[in-house]
């Protein structure tokens, strides 16, 4: 089954699976994932002790807490070898300055890594805040839909990844991303984007941006797990996703994002 079936179908599928639970239990006792994995090709085995089907990652971003220090964007460049020049980011911080009337003024000099210069405009400031941005790891990802060769995909643990050695560099995914989260890596000439630091989270570490965030603006964990920080975030936050009308079903949730954030 393709990873991105429409959710209704998936739900129906899961429903029917659940109804046949007793039968499944019987089979599972014989063919438990461990048993099956032991027999499978060793080259495709996940890291030892890691079962992707048991995870479903999500991130929460609390805009009220962000101080715009840009440590996340900086750490991301360090961790993932994102080119410092010219202007590509897997994650970046935007500053919103909302005057009493008219459009918000938004900027993100060097992704916020060097801090933000003082606002020198002549407009009065009504509200102002920082918004960290990154790949939204959509469940219904438009970038995955358009990839002609299957070089980008939603992994079984819910992370949108790019296969660097298979991408042809057509850039259709970059055009299809509503969030501007993708870019063409100037060295590999392939599409690149945030992986939730897949190489870290599968080892039990936090994504680099979450690790260094000094104010816990970013929280990371398992969607739907009671013991996950995401659970608390989703329960108490005024939670929304970006561009919800596009039906991309992001896995990055924002708390405190007002109407100007897009």
């Amino acid at each position, binding site marked *: *089954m*393709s*990873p991105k079936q429409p959710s209704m179908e998936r739900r129906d599928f899961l429903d029917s699976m659940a109804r046949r639970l007793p039968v499944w239990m019987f089979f599972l006792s014989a063919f438990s994932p461990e048993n099956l994995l032991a027999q499978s*090709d060793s*080259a*495709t*085995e*996940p*890291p030892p002790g*890691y079962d*992707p089907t048991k995870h479903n990652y999500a991130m929460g971003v609390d805009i*009220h*807490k*962000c*101080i*715009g*220090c*840009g*440590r996340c964007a900086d*750490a991301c460049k*360090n*961790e993932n070898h994102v080119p410092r020049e010219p202007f590509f980011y897997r994650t970046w911080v935007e*500053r*919103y*300055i909302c005057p009493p009337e008219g459009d918000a003024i938004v900027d993100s000099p060097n992704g916020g890594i060097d*801090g*933000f210069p*003082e*606002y020198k405009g002549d407009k009065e*400031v009504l509200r*102002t*805040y*920082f918004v960290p941005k990154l790949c939204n790891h959509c469940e219904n990802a438009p970038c995955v839909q358009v990839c002609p060769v*299957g*070089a*980008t*995909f*939603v*992994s*079984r643990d819910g992370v949108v*990844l790019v*296969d*660097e*050695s*298979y991408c042809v560099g057509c850039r259709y995914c970059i055009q299809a991303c509503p969030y501007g989260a993708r870019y063409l890596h100037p060295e590999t000439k392939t599409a690149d984007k945030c*992986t939730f630091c*897949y*190489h*870290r989270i*599968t*080892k039990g*570490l*936090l994504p*680099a941006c979450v*690790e*260094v*965030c*000094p*104010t*816990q603006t970013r929280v990371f964990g398992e969607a739907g797990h009671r013991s996950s920080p995401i659970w608390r975030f989703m329960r108490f936050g005024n939670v929304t996703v970006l561009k919800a009308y596009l039906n991309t079903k992001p896995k990055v949730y924002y708390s405190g994002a007002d109407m100007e954030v897009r």
Partner: protein
Amino acid sequence: MTIKASSVPQQVIPLAIIFAAGITGLLVIRHFLVPDTFGEHGHYRADAVDEIAALPVSYAGYQACVDCHDDIFTAKQSSFHKGLSCETCHGPAGQHVEDQDKFKPAKPHGREFCILCHGYNVSRPSGFPQILPNMHNPGKACVGCHDPHKPTTPRPPGDCSACHAGIANQKAVSHHTDLQCNTCHEVPKDHITQPRLSRAEKPTSRDICGKCHGKDATGGIEEAPRIDMASHGGRYMCWDCHYPHDPEATK
């Protein structure tokens, strides 16, 4: 075979051969070139997931630091910097975990690094400790007075603006410039040293505004705009409509 060779038009035969050869050739090539693990879990190369998972880690994560530096960590945990990861300031330390002697993590010394978080910026949440770098001991290194692992100020801040710079700046150019913070806010003594444990009070009644702005008020300056507290604003609190740190100029 019931079709006689002669019943098939002559021109179809070479075309059929060419197309059959072409399609067969493509299918054969395809069979050999499609990566082994393609399609195992979906329309992608399953190996790619493991390749990405196997990438090297630069940031070790604070747990790795705690293993050796538990003393610093314990001290830090009771300070305002308890939410900070070691690598937020010291940079990626994965190599240091691998080889403690060969690679030493960075120690930011100058003012620039601290200012990234603590320099005054109007967009930061109010209450977050910020300084005006030009005014706050210019030229001196932050670590001269503040221990980054226990950053409580060596002496309590003398002025509310040390932490509430945003509000102070706004008030300074407003009609309320001459009002002291404690004219309206009741500030417990401990708020200066433990701001989150003992919070400053916000006014709860309209009377506090009425002291200066009431029809027959005696407090404050003579020019202060006056209203009839009984009829003005109904059941609303003054600050539901007026922003006390920057009250509007129009009367």
